[in-house]
């Protein structure tokens, strides 16, 4: 039996792992695959202290190296459920059951879908949620970025270096992204803001090779409908937590509710990072959550000895 199982190897899980091994806990991180964390998909991270500018993947590699050198063990396996038997926690995985005294859920989140006709049909056929993964396919083409937050604007800036034209479509009358990003977008000649506008449909060719050809937009104020020719659509409209496998108290969107010690409604089960109901889903907050959860888990394990 492990002292602590951490489910998820993104920034929250890694931070929790480093803290846990330093407390002397026999700890293992379960990762669904070897590239964890939404941050791996970030072209550039500029708001994490100590790293003025670093790619998400490079930062994640640094985390993993740090964890490995600190003595954190990892296993590639998918957690299917978590249950308590007395003070023992049992994590069922696709490689069998694992036991621990405490569990930290740090499974993060996935990009939320826009939920419009054509989106699902054209995923990987022009609809994407990751510009650094798929952006280079749109060299000298026209793309639409949907959203107004940091991710949308950061990836619009990345795409502006590849695509001929980037339309940044947002439903509100202003962007939510950090001012520095908004200023960069405004200064980029091939990014055009399309505000107060909803994406109603993503359309394209269905016979033969499927591909996106246009988006149908609606102006929120005038209700006018128009078509915008586009080869790719990159969607950044929020996140969905990966929490379906665990039965603890969650909010209406599935984010796990915790107190300030990252304790969930189930004793000995903690949550950290983007899977948690938190005011900001940011790298720096995920790392903080991981440290707190590991500290709380250590106290808990000490008390049940």
């Amino acid at each position, binding site marked *: 039996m492990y002292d602590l199982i951490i489910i998820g190897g993104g920034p929250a899980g890694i931070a929790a792992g480093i803290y846990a091994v330093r407390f002397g806990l026999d700890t293992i991180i379960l990762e669904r695959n070897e590239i964890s964390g939404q941050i791996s998909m970030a072209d550039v991270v500029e708001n994490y202290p100590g790293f003025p500018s670093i790619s998400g993947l490079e930062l994640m590699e640094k985390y993993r190296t740090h964890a490995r050198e600190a003595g954190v063990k990892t296993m590639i396996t998918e957690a299917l459920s978590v249950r308590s038997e007395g003070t023992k926690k049992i994590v069922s995985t696709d490689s069998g059951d694992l036991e621990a005294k405490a569990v930290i859920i740090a499974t993060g989140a996935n990009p939320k879908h826009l939920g419009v006709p054509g989106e699902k049909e054209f995923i990987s056929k022009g609809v*994407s949620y990751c510009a650094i*993964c*798929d952006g*280079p*396919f*749109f060299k000298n083409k026209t793309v639409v970025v949907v959203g107004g937050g940091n991710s949308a604007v950061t990836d619009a800036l990345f795409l502006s270096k590849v695509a001929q034209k980037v339309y940044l479509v947002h439903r509100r009358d202003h962007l939510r992204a950090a001012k520095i990003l908004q200023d960069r977008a405004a200064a980029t000649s091939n990014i055009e803001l399309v505000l107060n506008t909803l994406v109603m449909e993503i359309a394209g060719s269905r016979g033969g090779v499927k*591909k996106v050809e246009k988006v149908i937009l609606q102006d929120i104020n005038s209700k006018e409908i128009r078509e915008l020719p586009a080869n790719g659509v990159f969607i950044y409209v929020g996140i969905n937590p990966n929490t379906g496998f665990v039965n603890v108290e969650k909010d209406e969107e599935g984010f796990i509710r915790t107190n300030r010690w990252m304790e969930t409604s189930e004793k000995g089960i903690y949550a950290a990072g983007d899977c948690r109901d938190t005011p900001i889903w940011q790298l720096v907050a995920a790392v903080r959550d991981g440290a707190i959860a590991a500290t709380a888990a250590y106290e808990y394990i000490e008390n049940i000895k």
Partner: protein
Amino acid sequence: MVKVTLIHASWCTFCPAARRFWKDLKSEYDFEYEEIDVESPEGQALADKHGIVSVPTTLIDGEPVFTGLPKKADAITHITQK
């Protein structure tokens, strides 16, 4: 025998992990395996034929089946289907 073709790219974040994934699986299961750079003429031809605009993409017996990193259980199901 099932043939697995991994379409990858030099700039692709998840491709190194996908290559390791399929190579590890090949050490456990018997299937044909090849890797094709999407920027090579052969890769470009496959991308055009199947409308591939996302990597890594895995073809099973010539048809696109997985985009991104597959789940191991799903991959095993496909390579043991014959």
